[in-house]
């Protein structure tokens, strides 16, 4: 516990017109921690992440990243230290840019210089050889594209990686490769992760601590260890856990809606 947490969210609220997507969410993430946000569709988990990333300007509350209060617009320094990886690697890479150009862009924007060496290094770090450098996204598999998306985030040498369902579009064998890569990179670089997922097993594997969201609210916060032992306090979390363990007719018949 050394002073400021890496990320602090206090009473975050986001509305889209009349829909209150996030209704007063608070949590903090320490430096070097991996924090999970789980929930079903419409729970507001991705909206929290997007507000944090500066992709959604219409929010109220308090967001502090690396000790600094964040406004609606972020400066360049913020994006240098806080990067995001999106769910769908088929949609997040420019189809008419080569991998080289995709990776060169952030380096140029932040005037980091030495683009050539940085791109080589970034590709090597995510396990892609230099033969991929001048290819287009459509020439790559889903897993390879997600590696490019991770390389693009890491090339700025950020402290924080925001991960929005980074493996849910991938086959399970490829998912394992990407999760291993993310685990290794965090250990090597001391990164802080916020991982959004609907998959409890993925979050339990990747995160030390997690928050469960439902209908825009934070239901509870717990350790991955507690989750693994099934020690959830809230009925909602217990139902989610039960559903994640596979089909059980009697259990599913008893499922209810949580408002």
């Amino acid at each position: 516990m050394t002073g400021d947490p890496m990320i602090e969210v206090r009473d975050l609220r986001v509305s889209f017109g009349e829909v209150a997507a996030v209704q007063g969410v608070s949590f903090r993430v320490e430096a070097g921690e991996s924090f999970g946000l789980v929930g079903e569709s419409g729970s507001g988990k991705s909206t929290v992440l997007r507000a944090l990333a500066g992709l959604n300007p219409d929010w109220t509350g308090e967001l502090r990243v690396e000790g600094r209060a964040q406004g609606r617009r972020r400066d360049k320094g913020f994006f240098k230290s806080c990067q995001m990886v999106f769910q769908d690697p088929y949609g997040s890479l420019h189809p008419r840019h080569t991998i080289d150009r995709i990776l060169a862009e952030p380096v140029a924007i932040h005037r980091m210089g030495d683009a050539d060496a940085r791109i080589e290094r970034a590709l090597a770090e995510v396990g892609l050889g230099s033969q991929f450098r001048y290819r287009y996204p459509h020439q790559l598999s889903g897993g390879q594209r997600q590696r490019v998306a991770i390389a693009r985030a890491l090339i700025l040498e950020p402290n924080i990686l925001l991960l929005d369902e980074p493996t849910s579009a991938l086959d399970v064998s490829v998912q394992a490769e990407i999760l291993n890569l993310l685990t290794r990179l965090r250990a090597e670089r001391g990164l802080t992760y916020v991982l959004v997922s609907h998959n409890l097993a993925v979050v339990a594997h990747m995160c030390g601590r997690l928050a469960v969201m439902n209908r825009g609210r934070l239901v509870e916060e717990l350790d991955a260890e507690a989750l693994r032992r099934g020690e959830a306090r809230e009925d909602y979390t217990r139902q989610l856990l039960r559903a994640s363990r596979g089909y059980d007719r009697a259990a599913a018949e008893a499922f209810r809606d949580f408002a």
Partner: protein
Amino acid sequence: MTPKSMTPSDQSPLLRVENLRVAFPTPTGPFEAVRGVSFAMGREKLGIVGESGSGKSLTGRSILRLVPSPGTVTADRMEFEGEELTALPETRLRAIRGRRISMVMQDPKFSLNPVMTVGRQIAEAYRVHHRAGSGEARRRALEMLEAVRIRDPERVYGLYPHEVSGGMGQRIMIAMMLIPGPALLIADEPTSALDVTVQMQVLVILDELCGRQGMGLVFISHDLNLVASFCDRVLIMYAGRVVESCRAADLHKATHPYTRGLLDSLPRLEERRAELPVLARDPRWLEDGR
């Protein structure tokens, strides 16, 4: 719904497929996406699992001859309720499609007609296959909506597809596919677009309808744990072949290195592992399918 007389006795399978092949022409010669798949099933829940590109969806589609052209489907035998499907003319097949064998796709958003109320779509599915007036079709559709556990069928009947949630949309799809009273339902990732709890609730409905109507179900999925807990039997496909088949409850004792590798690579809720074992693909798997 009239209870089906068990004409083809339970000894003869509901569906028997032998040496099914699906090929697509490419500039470098035909590419075989399904390479000699054989199986037989009764009135049971048969799971087909595999990763993308394994040929599981094409296997399901080729039963109803729904493989898009330039694709070609061949099989030594494709027998449904004792009738050979491969030799059947398109007109005769149309009487089977939807009526005796029907299919549920992954995403209700793309399978429902956006400019027609869901109730009318279900009623239409009934009238296409049965001689019935609009009043009777409506009554049947409402019954079916109730059977898939939609709470207020009268209200939902008049809704358009964009007004219903994903889970409800999938129940509506299932209602539409089941209203003609098929003997076999092919469900291609029917719950993958849904939240886990909704997914389980939809599976309860499928489970119950299989039991009550004595219907066979081909359940195509990439989710090994789901198939293991839901189905009776599983086929595991890899690169267009069935590499292993077993009782679903025994999937965790599977012996093929591909199946083992897939199971190992899944993150587990109960167990902390520093690193996930990565699947090392063996070229021999391409050849030693059964």
